[in-house]
Structures are given as structure tokens and as C-alpha cells.
């Protein structure tokens, strides 16, 4: 089964790291194949940021996203550019603190930024909450795999904080249920 996941937001949210973590979980711990790509350039510094990861049971021939079926969106601009015309059978995880738009496909509204501030006192973990919601909503990688990938990808000393944020993201996805 092939999944193409697009992450979008703005520079500083950890959009690229999010794709790397999910790719690492799939490639190293779920024993699948993964390719991660990103948009480079000035637009990736403070402005819009986009990254993608493809996960497949088979070796990945074409490394670029062709038919994304999962979206993780953390900015309104990212929603307009990548999410607004998502196909109906796609799944979208939205940070509803930032994204006003709503897609035609099924979506999960996650107040990741406010939760990061209120529950953890660290806005920086909002992307990890979103990854938790992504995994909770789609199961695109295993829980154990994503925990291992988060643990080895975050700065030393912040592992527990990030793992709690990951767990909270999974809970928020379960609470949100899919909408509409």
C-alpha cells in the first residue's frame, strides 16, 4: 500500500522534520520503504514550508509526490496552496488554531498550537502533536515505530516532552473523530 503524505506550514514549525520523522519511522521501524523530499530555497525560511514523504511496501521508484492521499496542514497559506483541492478520498489533519479553511475530503481538526502552549508550555511541540494525530487518525506508521523515530530525532533531554506531545496528538485525533 502506497501513501503520499504532504506536510505544509511555515518555516520554524518543524514541517520538514515532521516528514523526516514519519519517513524514519516507516523505513527503520516498520520495515517499509520511504522517500522524503522538501521544497528548499528562500521560501523555506520563515515563509511557506512544504515537505513530503512517500511510504510503500514496495521499493519506491518515483520519488516525487504524484497523488497525495494524506495532508498535514499547519498554515492557512499551506491549506490554500496544497490542501484546498485535495481529492475527496484524502485524509487531512488540520491545525485548527491556524487554518480557517475546510476541505471537501474527510478531516481531523486538531488545536495543536494552543495545546502545545497550554498543556506543554512549548509551542515548538505543535508539530509533534500533529504527527501524533496523523498516526492516530491514519495508522500510516505503527505507534511503536513513531515513538522510536521521535525519540531519536528530537534534541537530547526533550524526549519525554516530545513523547507526551505525541501521545496527546493521538488522543486529540480520537476525540476529534473524523469530520464531517
Amino acid at each position, binding site marked *: 500500500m502506497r501513501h503520499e503524505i504532504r506536510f505544509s506550514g511555515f518555516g520554524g514549525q518543524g514541517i520538514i522534520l515532521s516528514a*523526516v520523522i514519519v*519517513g*524514519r519511522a516507516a*523505513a*527503520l521501524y516498520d520495515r517499509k*520503504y*520511504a*522517500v*522524503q*523530499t*522538501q521544497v*528548499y*530555497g528562500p521560501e523555506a525560511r520563515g515563509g511557506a514550508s512544504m515537505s513530503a514523504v512517500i511510504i510503500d511496501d514496495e521499493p*519506491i*521508484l*518515483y*520519488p*516525487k509526490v*504524484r497523488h497525495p492521499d494524506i495532508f498535514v496542514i499547519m498554515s492557512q497559506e499551506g491549506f490554500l496552496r496544497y490542501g484546498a483541492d485535495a481529492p475527496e478520498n484524502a485524509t487531512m489533519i488540520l491545525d485548527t488554531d491556524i487554518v480557517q479553511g475546510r476541505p471537501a475530503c474527510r478531516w481531523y481538526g486538531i488545536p495543536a498550537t494552543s495545546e502545545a502552549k497550554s498543556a506543554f508550555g512549548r509551542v515548538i511541540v505543535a508539530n509533534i502533536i500533529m504527527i501524533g494525530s496523523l498516526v492516530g487518525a491514519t495508522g500510516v506508521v505503527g505507534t511503536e515505530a513513531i515513538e522510536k523515530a521521535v525519540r531519536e530525532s528530537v534534541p537530547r533531554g526533550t524526549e519525554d516532552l516530545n513523547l507526551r506531545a505525541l501521545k496527546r496528538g493521538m488522543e486529540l485525533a480520537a476525540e476529534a473523530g473524523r469530520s464531517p
Partner: protein
Amino acid sequence: MSKISFIQGNIACAEGALAAGCRFFGGYPITPSTEIAEHMAMKLPKVKGTFIQMEDEIGSIAAVIGAAWTGVRAMTATSGPGLSLMMENIGYAVMTETPLVIVDIQRGGPSTGQPTMASQGDMFQCRFGSHGDYSIIALSPATVQEMYEMTAEAFNLADRFRVPVFLMADEIIGHMREKMTLPDTVPVMPVRERTERSTLPFKAEKDGVPGFTPFGKGHHVHVTGLTHDERGYPSTTNPDVHERLVTRLVAKVESTRREIASYDVTNPEAETVFVSYGAPTRAVWQALHDLKDDTVGHFRLKMVWPFPDWVEELFPQAQAYIVPEMNLGLISRELERHVTIPVISVPRLGGALHEPEELIRAVEGAK
């Protein structure tokens, strides 16, 4: 034990170099190759190697040439604008038979062009960019795994032939992260040495390559970019000396093209054959997978220079070749010189990879 890893192509390149025993990097950071310099700057001091950031790419390649003459495996990494600056000293490396590895993570040109977008616009520059007649070797990776393996292999080829060897990658392969296997060790060929304590440091062995005597190994060697005799002394007005030297510099590589050639052949009975190298190879793989048509084949070049000019032996029933490249058709032109059937160029500029659908349409158009 080998280790499964999920790393960027540029990091895989640096790791491949370190595994091959590279202990000197001289460079000037340039997008999209910078991660190679960063990683080497971090790792080389830990293995008693040397990293130097030079003032520009002219100094960088000069430092690499100097390091190679101390007997250490040496490399640089750059992109188009940097490669342009290196050109004069690349000729010097060819003339002095200095083994070294140059990594070019290609981006859109001419000039500063598109720093963050992929291209294959330097495929002729690496082969013909410096003045005079000469020959080099160029490899073209299409996966993160190959970034590792081909970088390591580049050092073996450089030592064997005493030539600059180019790893001609691009922004897509350099920057993407992909699952790969980091092996315990890579094959490392011993450095070729002079077979006897000769007074002729540029006298070739049977294969056309002189044994190498780096500085500090007990031999006096004069190294010059001027036309030189077998002693290494300038001899700039004797036509025979120049002809003999330059002919040998070319022949030592070109005479082995069949032996060192590296390519993959898919569906040798095919009527329509894709020819690709580097990133567009990934689009061809996907197109072949989607087409499921045995009359469509693939000639995938891992080594682009020297060019394997016996393509027609490999695909005896081919009616047309389709060459997707991220330039306006460089290698398609080279292929045209060697085949008698139509060569259809599928050029792509701007940095986006060919789409598999576009290649499938090209097959339909060729039939």
C-alpha cells in the same frame, strides 16, 4: 553488521567518501551541495582527516590537487557555478595525472541560475569543460544508496587511472532522504605505486598509467601542467612529446571503456528504449512499471563518461531511443553519434523531474 539508514543523498555521499578512506576535503559551500561539506567538516577531524574551506572554488580544487599529491584520498563537492571556476585546475589535474574526486550536485544554470532546483546541465562541462584534449570518468547516481556506493567507487577509479572522477548527481538525489543500507566496509583498491625505483615518474605501465609517487615517499618528482616527458620535465616544443603524452592521457581511460562500463539493461528485446542517467531514471522506472510492456526497454547509465558507444549491440531490435534529461538534450546528442535509429530527446528545464505520464506519452509517440 550493515545498518539500515534513512539519510539524505548528500550525507550518503559524504559517508561513502569516508568509508572509502577519503581524508581530505577542500571546498567552498554552495547550494545544493553544502550538506556534503558540512558533514565532512564534522566527521573528518574525528578520523584525523583534514577539512579546509577555501576562499573560492579555484582554491578548493587546487587544495585537493595538493592534498592528493601527498598520497591522501581527496575530494571536493560543488555545483555548476563552482565547477565552472574549477575548470582550469581540472585540466591541471588531468595533465599532472592527479587522482581526485569531484562531486557536482547539479542545479539549474547558466550562471547562478536556480540554486535550489535540479538540473543535468553540467554533463558536457565535466567532460569537455577544460581546454585541450583529455578524458575523465563520470558516474551518475539515481538513488541515495548509489550516492554512497558510487562515491566510494569513484576513489578507486581515480586511483586506478590517476584522473579526476566526477560524481554527477543533482539536487533531487542530493537532497532527498531514502532508505538505504550502510555496509560495514566498501571495496578499497590499494593505491597504485611505482613498480621499481624508477627515475621516470611519468613513464606509464602497460595499462598506460604511471605508478604514483606522492610527495614524501622518497622520490624526487617534478609536477607540471606544461607538456612534459617521462621524467616530468617540461618539453613544450617537441611535437612528438606532446602527441605521445596527450594521446596516452586520453587512451588510458578510453581504451578501457568496455571493461569499466557500468549500466543496467532492461528488456534487451525491446523496440522502444529509454536511455537515462541520474534522477530521470526514477521517472523511467515508474513509467516501465506502469506500462507493463515488454517492447519497451531501458538502458540506464551508471557511468556516463566514457560513453558506452556499443548501445546497438545491447538492444538489437530497437527502433527508437527516448532520452529524458534535465537539460536541452546533451547525452541524447552523444547517443546520436553512435546509433543509426532515431533518438528522441525529452528535455526538461526548470528543476521539476519528468513525470512518468509524460514518458509514457513519449513511448506512444515513438511507436
